[in-house]
């Protein structure tokens, strides 16, 4: 009897549990997802600066940045200085001309006392009195053109986020006149005549850059030096030998100096074009990296420049700020890279170009960019 009761209770319990399980409540809501893809609103374009391979839809890019060597003059010491110099010591007689030209870029500039940095200069001695014909930088997007007889330097507005070709030419067309020309990127920025006595002893004493005064800090990169002396003899230096054979009379003190390095001047490496009728915001970012280099990547449109991706042996800042890419307009992607000649190359940078409709964050698209350096 007792067994029968227990058996009945067991089956009752099992039945109840089964009922409970089958009493589960499931509710179903339908979800439909439709994809209607579109042609890429933003596509990459090749600026033909470096060997570049675009993806078939121009939504990716592989770039091979070729190596270049340049002279790096640096002053990292507020109590130090660096002057890169070559003594010329040639007389400038009537009918002769002296010209110096190089490609230069200055960056990481601090100058609390506004002493400036000479980007290019000729010391010309007139009757043994030194005079300096100079192109000087005090920060911002302006350079100052100065020389004998100019009481106030002439200002010249220039985009200093990129390198420029500077040229100073001094001629003596008449016995009593010096003509001084300042060229920037092969355009005449300013010129004037300076009266001298017919018997003046004019000597091109030296060419130089940097600053003897202390308190500022900077990196100055120079390449493609070309000097035409008073005898029309051309001396050039591209530093590709790994040695500076031009600025042989340089001098410095403190934590300042000069060395030849691998250097890629700030240049456009890729364009992005907005094919759409609406504007987008875009930026660059980079994957983690460790390499013995200093590198910057940034973007520009016609009116503004993003902040930079910064690499100093490792990634310090991993993305740029966003900038506007208007309808039917371009943004320009820039890089500059420094590496010691001892660096193990090549180095690969894995960048991402990201964009989204301006002032809207619902959709973000990312295109890959691979840059091989070296």
């Amino acid at each position, binding site marked *: 009897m007792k067994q029968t009761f227990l058996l009945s209770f067991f089956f009752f319990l099992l039945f109840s549990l089964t009922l409970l*399980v089958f009493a*589960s*409540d*499931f*509710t*179903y*809501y*339908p*979800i*439909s*997802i*439709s*994809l*209607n*893809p*579109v*042609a*890429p*609103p933003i*596509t990459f374009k090749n600026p033909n600066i470096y060997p570049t391979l675009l*993806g*078939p*839809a*121009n*939504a*990716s890019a592989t770039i091979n940045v070729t190596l270049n060597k340049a002279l790096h003059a640096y002053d990292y010491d507020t109590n130090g200085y660096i002057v890169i110099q070559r003594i010329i010591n040639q007389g400038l007689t009537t009918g002769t001309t002296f010209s110096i030209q190089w490609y230069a870029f200055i960056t990481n500039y601090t100058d609390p006392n506004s002493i400036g940095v000479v980007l290019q200069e000729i010391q010309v001695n007139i009757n043994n009195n030194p005079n300096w014909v100079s192109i000087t930088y005090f920060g911002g997007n302006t350079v100052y053109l100065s020389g004998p007889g100019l009481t106030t330097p002439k200002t010249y507005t220039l985009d200093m986020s990129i390198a420029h070709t500077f040229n100073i030419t001094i001629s003596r067309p008449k016995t009593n006149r010096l003509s001084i020309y300042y060229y920037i990127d092969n355009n005449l920025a300013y010129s004037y005549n300076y009266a001298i006595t017919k018997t003046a002893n004019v000597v091109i004493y030296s060419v130089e850059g940097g600053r003897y005064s202390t308190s500022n800090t900077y990196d100055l990169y120079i390449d493609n030096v070309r000097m035409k002396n008073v005898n029309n003899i051309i001396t050039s230096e591209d530093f590709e030998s790994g040695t500076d054979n031009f600025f042989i009379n340089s001098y410095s003190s403190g934590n300042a100096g000069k060395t030849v390095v691998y250097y890629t001047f700030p240049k456009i490496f890729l364009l992005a074009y907005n*094919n*759409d*009728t*609406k504007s987008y915001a875009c930026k660059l970012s980079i994957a983690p990296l460790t390499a013995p280099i200093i590198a910057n990547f940034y973007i520009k449109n016609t009116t503004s420049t993003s902040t930079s991706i910064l690499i100093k042996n490792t990634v310090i800042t991993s993305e740029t700020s966003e900038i506007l890419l208007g309808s039917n307009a371009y943004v320009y992607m820039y890089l500059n890279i420094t590496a010691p000649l001892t660096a193990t190359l090549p180095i690969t940078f894995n960048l991402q170009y990201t964009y989204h*409709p301006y002032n*809207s*964050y*619902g*959709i*973000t*698209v*990312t*295109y*890959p960019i691979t840059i091989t350096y070296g």
Partner: protein
Amino acid sequence: MFKRKILILLSLTVLLAIVNAAVFVYYTTNLSLSPVAPPIVFSNGNNAGQPDLSGTNTIGVIIGSANTSLTITLHPTYRYNYYKNITIIKNQDTKAYYVTIRVNTPLSNAKLLSATLRIYDTTGTTITNVDLRVTDTTAWLGPLNSNSKWFIDIILSIDETGGSPSSAPFASDSASLQLIYSPQNVETAP
């Protein structure tokens, strides 16, 4: 012996008669339905209706009148497309529910290198990533607590191979899913 056979035959006949004289017993059962407002509902994410790629396209999010159905229309392009916070799953009940996502008809275009529906909570912690290219049902997620929200992102990676800057990666594709919820997480949803 003969009598015994007669007895067996009689017994069988009686048994057959019992079977054929089946008795039907009827108990009264009352089934009463008392519908309630949906405890779990869809609502627009911050970016529903915001500009999508190309021209006047928008991130299309249509929610049924009872907030119990969802239609999403997107306009991606080549490479990596991230659609963020386009829909919200909200529990407006006083009790918690478990949720699962079932992909009945997956996205099928071969250009889709990946297609993920990401669900995450208010802290940004991922609840699950649903592969929209595979027919599958997730495990029970949650619970989605009373008055809590989950958010939906959709991430698409589209192959550039064979593409063109002037044409879309492919014409169209669609997926059919279900959001299933239950107060329990013991039994798998049928």
